[in-house]
Each structure stands twice: as C-alpha cells, then as structure tokens.
C-alpha cells in the first residue's frame, strides 16, 4: 500500500501532501524535510527508487515537480511508478496540459482527483475517463450551488441598492 503521496517542487516547496498512514504533525514535517533532501539531490539518470527508513520511495520528476509515493519494501515499484504517471495523465486531461501553476492555483482540484484515484493507499480507478467524469460531476454540482448562492447574493445586493 502507499503510505503517503508528496508533490515537491524543484525548489523544495511542497505542493501537495496526502497521508494514508498515520503520521503526527511532527513526523509529517520531519518526513518532508528528510525526503526532499534525499530526492531533490539525486542526479538525473538514476533509478526512480530510494530506500528510506526501511520503506521505499518511488519518485518521478515531471518538469519542475517531483511526484513521490512511499510504499512498503515488498511493494511493486514499477506499478507505483505507473500510478504516478496515471495521476499525471488524469491531471493533464483535466487541466489540459497541466503545469505547476495549475496545481498551485487549483490545489483543491488536485486533491479531488487524487481522491478519485487513490483511497487508503490503494488504486481505486484505473480508467482515466471514469475519473475525469466523476470529477466533472463534482464540479458541476459545485457550480450549481454557486449559482444559487450567487443569485441570492445578487438579489440581496439588488435589495440593498434599492
């Protein structure tokens, strides 16, 4: 199973964290510190796996972002590597050629999508279309709700203007 997912930018800024195993706040920041040190310093043509505290971290770099997932030592590394890629592809499809800025401004979307792909550290859905569809459905729900509140607010403003 996946213990946690991290997105770290090349400058060491954390873009997304998701913890499937229980870590306290202190442990979380410690993990972040240690791992960004380990991963960001690795050269370009090395393998995508790092052994770390008896666990394995599978990471992959896309442009300026490192996607890292931490798994059990007996897990299947390549499988995880492809989950990462799968996630990136879904992001790509959703945002339309995704870039780091997309994830900074729409970080909540990144979380929603991740929730559709992974639950409790296991792959939930391997079909890109299904994932995108369900995220889109959520979005439309939000939009609908917004329109409602939006119209009520404009009504209030209209009232006040009178």
């Amino acid at each position, binding site marked *: 199973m996946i213990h946690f997912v991290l997105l770290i930018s090349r400058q060491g800024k954390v873009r997304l964290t998701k913890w499937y195993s229980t870590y306290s706040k202190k442990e979380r920041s410690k993990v*972040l510190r240690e791992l960004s040190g380990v991963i960001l310093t690795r050269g370009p043509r090395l393998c995508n796996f*790092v052994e770390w505290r008896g666990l394995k971290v599978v990471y992959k770099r896309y442009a300026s972002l490192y996607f890292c997932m931490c798994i059990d030592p007996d897990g299947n*590394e390549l499988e995880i590597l492809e989950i990462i890629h799968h996630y990136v592809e879904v992001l790509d499809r959703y945002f339309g050629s995704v870039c780091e800025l997309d994830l900074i401004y729409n970080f909540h979307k990144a979380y929603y999508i991740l929730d559709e792909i992974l*639950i409790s550290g296991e792959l939930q859905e391997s079909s890109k279309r299904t994932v995108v569809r369900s995220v889109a459905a959520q979005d439309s729900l939000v939009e609908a709700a917004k329109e409602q509140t939006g119209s009520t607010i404009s009504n209030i403003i209209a009232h006040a203007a009178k």
Partner: protein
Amino acid sequence: MLYIYMLGYDVDFGHMEAVSLISAPKYPEKQVGYIVTSCLLNENHDFLRLAINTVRNDIIGRNETFQCLALTLVGNIGGREFAESLAPDVQKLLLSSSCRPLVRKKSALCLLRLFRKNPDVVNVDGWADRMTQLLDERDLGVLTSSMSLLVALVSNNHEAYWTCLPKCVKILERLARSQDVPQEYTYYGIPSPWLQVKTMRALQYFPTIEDPNTRRTLFEVLQRILMGTDVVKNVNKNNASHAVLFEALALVMHLDAEKEMMSQCVALLGKFIAVREPNIRYLGLENMTRMLIVADVQESLKRHQAQIITSLKDPDISICRRALDLLYGMCDITNAKDIVEELLQYLNSADFTMREELSLKAAILAEKFAPDLSWYVDVILQLIEKAGDFISDDIWFRVVQFVTNNDDLQPYAAAKAKEYLDKPAVDEKMVKVCAYILGEYSHLLARRPGCSPKEIFCVIHEKLPSVSTTTIPLLLSAYAKILMHTQPPDQVLQNQIWAIFTKYESCIDAEIQQRAVEYFALSRKGAALMDIFAEMPKFPERQSSLIKKAEDAEGDTAEQSALKLRAQQQPSNALVVTDQRPSNGEPPPVFVGQLSVVKAPNMNNTEDHYSTELVLSQENGNLSQVDQQPPSADPLSDLLGPLAIEGPPGATVQYENSTVSGLESGPDVVDGSAIVPVEVGTNTIQPIGNIAVRFHALCLKDSGVLYEDPYIQIGIKAEWRAHQGRLVLFLGNKNTSPLVSVQTLILPPAHLKMELSLVPDTIPPRAQVQCPLEVVNLRPSRDVAVLDFSYKFGTHMVNIKLRLPAVLNKFLQPLPVSAEEFFPQWRSLSGPPLKLQEVVRGVRPMALPEMSNLLHSYRIAISPGLDPNPNNLVASTTFYSENTRAIVCLVRIETDPADRTQLRMTLASGDPTLTFELKEFIKEQLVSIPTVAQAPTPAPPAAPLTPQIPPNDPAALLADLL
C-alpha cells in the same frame, strides 16, 4: 487553509471549522470540509469523534455524492472508532446491487482501510462467499478495488478464501489474453496492469495450488508473461509491462515452479541487471536477492557475479545497496574470497553513507566464510585501515576475540599489527587494535628482527600523542604488558615506561589516571606481576554481535528474513576455536558443590538468582560453561591467594570471604551468557547483559532496562510518591514477528499491594507495549516482588523470573535534619527494639564520601557535621507505608579509618520492624557487591591490599561487549 497548511504553517485554529463544515447541508461546503479534514487530521485526532455521526448519516443517506465524500474520508483517515460504528454499513454498501460502481469501489477500499487498521473490530466471517461474488464483477474499477481488499483479507487468513483462488486465476487469464477488456482500462495497450499485479499479489498469499487444472492455466499465463515481455521504446509501456513481469516473477518464485521455469527467470534477471535502464537494473538485483530464498538457484546466480560487482560501482546509491545486499546473500565458501576482496576495494570509493554497512557486511562475510584465520585477520585489519571511521568497535573486539582464542594465530596477528603500526598515518581504531594485540602477544615475536620489546614500545609510543583519551588507557595497558614480558628486565625501557606512567598519574581523565597509578605500582612488584599481567583468558564462544547488528539494521521484509534464516543455517563454522576447554583437575560437580556450600552466607539478596543458576549447572553436569569457569577464575585466584595471605592476620574471615567472591565470579562470568533457567535444556534464549546488575542499577534509579534478550526488551519507568508507586513496564518486541502467549504474573511479597493492568497476549512486531503497575507499600520489609514473565517466540517458550525494583529504599524520602531536631529524637529512641546497633564486618572497603554517596543514592540524606568524629556518618530519612505513614529514621555509621572493612551501625526509628529491616537493608548494600557481576575480574570485597582493577578494564570491556 489547506494552502496555508501546505506551505508549512500551523493551522490548528481551523480544525474545528473544517470538521463542522462536514455537517453543512450544501455540497461545496461539505466537500471543502471533507477534503480539509482528511488532509489535516490524522486518525487519532480528537475532533474526528465529533464528525462520526455526520459521516455515518452521509454514508447511510441516499445522496450518492455525499456517500462518496464520506467514504473517501473514512478510507483515508478512518480509525478505530470509525471501524466500530461504520463497518457494517460500509459492508452493506459494497454488496448492494443498487449502488453505482463509483460508490461500491469506494466502499471496498474504505472497508479495506478499516479492516487493515483494526482487524479485530471488522467482522469478516463468512466473507469468503461474498468475495467470490465480488470477483465476478464486470466493472474493472470495482474489481480492482475488490482485489485490493482481497489481498488484505487473504494475507490475514488464506484458508478461508481458497474459493477465490480459481476466480483469481480466471481473471488473470482473461487479462493476459486481453479478452473482454474495455478500451478505457487498457494502459498503453496493456490490459489493466494494476489489476494484473494485484491479482498475482493475491495469489502469492495462497501456499500452493492444489487443483492441477488451475495450476496449469496459471503456469501458462505466467509463461506467456515471462516470455512475451519485450523492452520497448515507450517508457510507460515498458514500466507497466515490467511491473507485471516482476510480479509474475515473484509469483513463480513463490510457487516453487519447475526447474526449467526457474532458470528461465534467472536468465531473465541476468539480462535485466545488464541493461541500461536503471529502474530495471535495480529491480533485477532486488529480485535476485529475493530469489536466493529458492535454494538451488545459487549456482546459476554465480554466473552473474561479475555483473553484480559492476553494479556495485554504480553511481546510484539505491542500486549499490541492492548489489551489496545481493552479494552478501549469495556469498558462500567458494566465492567469499573474491567477494570480500571486491568489497574491500570498493570501500575506497564508496559513498559515505554506505561505508558503515559495507564494512559491517564485509566483516561478517569474512568471519563466516574465512578459509583460514590469518586471512580473516588480514581482511579485518585492511578494513580498519580503509574505513576506520565507519567501523564500530564491535568489529575490532571480534577480531581480538578470535586472536585470543587461537594460539596459532597470535604470532601472525602480532606481526601484522606491527606492520600496520609502522605505516606513517594510522587510524585510531587501528592503533587500538594493534596496541592491544602487540601488548598481548608481541613477546611471541621477540626473536624476529626489529621486534624487540623496546622497538615495539617505540612504535606504539609514537602514536600516543595523536590519539584520543579513550585510546590512551589501552596504550598504557600495552606498555605494562610489554614491560612484563621483557625478561630479563630492560632497565632503560623500564624507566621510560615508568616515566610515562608517572606523567599520566596526574591526568585529568580518571580512567587514565587510575591505570597509570596502578600499573606503576604493580610493575614495581616484579615477579608477582607475571600473574596479574598474564595473557587474557580465552573468551567463551559467542555468536558474533556483528550478525545481530546487521540483522537489527535490516528492515523487516520477507526477503531479509529469508536471509536471516540462511545466516542461521550457516553458523560460523569456519572458525572453530582450536583449544577452547583446557582440561582442569577439578571435576565440575565438586566445583558446584563447593559453590553451594560457600555461597549461602552473604548472598541473601541475590539468592534466587544464583540458586537457579546452581540448578542449571548441576543438572547439566559438565556443561561447557562450567568447564570454562576455572580458566577465567584462575588469574583471579592467583591474584587473591598471595594477597590474602599478606593481609592482616586477623582476616581469616575475610579470606574466606574473598574466596567466596572469587568463586562467585565463576558463575558471574557465565552469568552474561547463562540461560535464564526454568526450562533448562529447551530454553536457548540468552539474556543480553546481566540481570542482577540491571536490577541493582534500577534499585538506584527510576528508569532503565530491566531485562533484555534477542527477542524482547523490558524497560521500567517508575514514579514514587510516599507509600505509593507507579511503575510502567515497557515490553518491547525487538523482532519482526509478533511475540505470542505473552503472560505476566506479579508475585508480590506480603508487604506490597500490586496491581498490574492488563497485558496483551501478543506483542506486535517491533512494537512496544506499556503496562502500568500500581504499587502500594503496606509495611517495611526487604522482600522483593517478582515478575514472572513468559512469552513464546516461534517454538521457544521463554519464561523469565525477574525481580522488580520496588525495594525498600523506593519508599524513603531523604530528610536532612539539623542538630536541634536530631539529638532529642535520637535520645528519645533508646535501646532495642526501636534502636538497634550492630557491628558489620566484611564491608566493601570504600572511602567515606563514597559511602555517603551510596547512602544518598538510596535516598538517605547525610547530615554533615552532626557527629564530631569525622569518620562517622549521620543520616536520616523518612519512610512511608500505608500502615505507618511517615516515620523518621535516623542512621549513624561509625567507621574505622584503620580498617575500612568493618563499621558499627546504629539505626533508630519509631517502628521496631522498620528499624530492623532498614538496618538489614543498609547492611546488604554495604556488604554486597552489586558491581561484581560486571567484570570477570571483580574487585574482591575483603582484600584491603587488592588493587582495584577498574571495571572498565579492556578485558572486561571486551568480555562484556563481545
């Protein structure tokens, strides 16, 4: 808020808001609430309890989107309480046919989380049928999730789910033939690689496949995967297909397939470790290591040895590690020499973070497979030379141990040591080991050119200015020994060495100072020196602490435990000690008899410990451990013999005493490795460290380790307030598998009321369990509570009886008094039974400050200046118990500066029992020698002229650590 959090700021203030948003009726608010909660909080957070009800309502509600949100939350951070209240509802959702696949797959994973976290809460009885049903699912998304669930269930209990097995094979077949797989579920042309991987993972949890048809189908599929995977251009396709391939390999290994298929696998892996793509190379090495479990591939793996060694030099540290592990695993007697030499060579260029592991492994291999001992010594010395800073002390202790135990090896080792010391820049560890060896054995070289004692001394002495304070004592010992071996005495050398001793007599480091003084004094004694500085006795054979260390360092993966298993199957038989049991005239039974006769008088507080040991040695007759006692006790009795005679004529009692202690040291030497009795014969678990010493240490302080063996460590932390105490036992499982049938029983003495909270039956791997224990003291007594502890590890049933440090002094509270308070009370308590006086003989000689420190550490406060005679101590303390409440106790100790071995003690308190008990207690502490068990050369209690050999003498250190 999430954004603030991600930037690393503290967002505690918002947790409550987030949780309350969950119960908002509108979707966007709810969604935000859920997502923030599941990211910020972990399963143990208190706020989550507030949300349980809302979450439950969402789950059983009709709104699918709400259901999804709730399930996601539970799946990601659900803890025990969620499992208790939600598991049945989630199970229902998973099975209901009216739900959309979206909800069902989420509920499958949610259930997986709940089950994984709390297998005891989630009831999965009768789930086998339902799982079989679920595996018929058409929707691949649901199937993927269900398969994850199945993996968890099966890993827990494979027997119940055997009905799922054929289904899994069928799914796998369907995927491998890519029949009936919707387009959206193919990934770069591969039908759902993840599902394939998961299915094979699930299959690995079944021990074997009985049904021949299923087995055949499975093997066909595997064969197809193994053969049909090619390296392609597209990275992702490549990765995905190899993910499947490696999982297939794992499955093949698990199924113990036919030879043919195995060698196919080895060939494949051999191809992988030579490719350019680093990921594949890494995995190739890793899987080769796993493959070592299958015994007969070793030979075929050897063909790839050269390639593996090349990988060792890879710039990527992950790959290097794998290669090192693999080499370590595949090493045996035939290739040990090559491999170890490679490792040594690599040490020069290795990454710093790897050097320690590398040198440790090289040392173990060298020891395990050494074709001859001189080679082993060569390797270790080279190792120390190349990676001195990265080597733990254990490695050089070990080599010294071997040299000491093998007479043939000694001249060779000494010559080598000299060679290394001759080099200009030498690492400090190297100085240590060389100085030690030369000190012990340089006389064996005396005839060779350039090896006269004087020259050796010069070589060693050259290094003195550059070493740290921890090494200087070793050098001093070496000098003393060289001096002793120089026969006839060389006047110049002697003066030189004495000059050094005198110089260090005023050294600031106590250890160095003590040694300098003692060696100086001893070396003036002339011939008597021979006995004291005799060669170190042989060490008892023990398992190398290195191997244990390596095991500890390794994680708890399946592959590594397999390595461990192999390590156990191949004990270090290459190094059989030549002459381990010198014959001694004394037949063991007589020895034991003697022991039991002389033991009784002054051992009352450690009696239970020793009597059990006696039983042990009697029952086992001439157990090798008994054999080893005389040689290790020998120098001691030599030491004691003449000195005791030199002692004052009135000291016959003391002489007897010292013999007792000399003999006692016999069992004490063994003690470190002695079996915890109870089940003599079957029980082979050996405690680490000396139990008695640990107990005594804990009598003085409130936290520490009570007991330790390779499987468990029992720590104690105590708090004492007046007559009550609260101890916490920390039961730590040191292993990667659970300890079962854990039972603790407290046998409290009559004066203590003890209540132990529930101790779990099983201690999970590498976990620590805390068991609070409440103690109430009813009345004064010296009896000690006993903890009867047992557990089962594998087939070993281990039972240990440990004394708990809930002793008299824990209920004392130091109370300094002034003269005005003291004297009226002292006078008012006149004569027995409230005031008792006794002359104590055979006291461990100690200076007055030392004695007051001792009393102080037992929580008895010294009031200086109350007694006009400076040789007397006056002290006071308060005793608490439930029956008596606080009682003030007054103590007066009159010592005789001429004879430190006797003193007069007067005790006074308002309670006769307390007076008596406290008097006896203090007496025990003054007479007994709690540190005796630490070293094979203990300080005898009653020989006033005996040089106190410091407890951290190198010999003792070695014997202790090895």
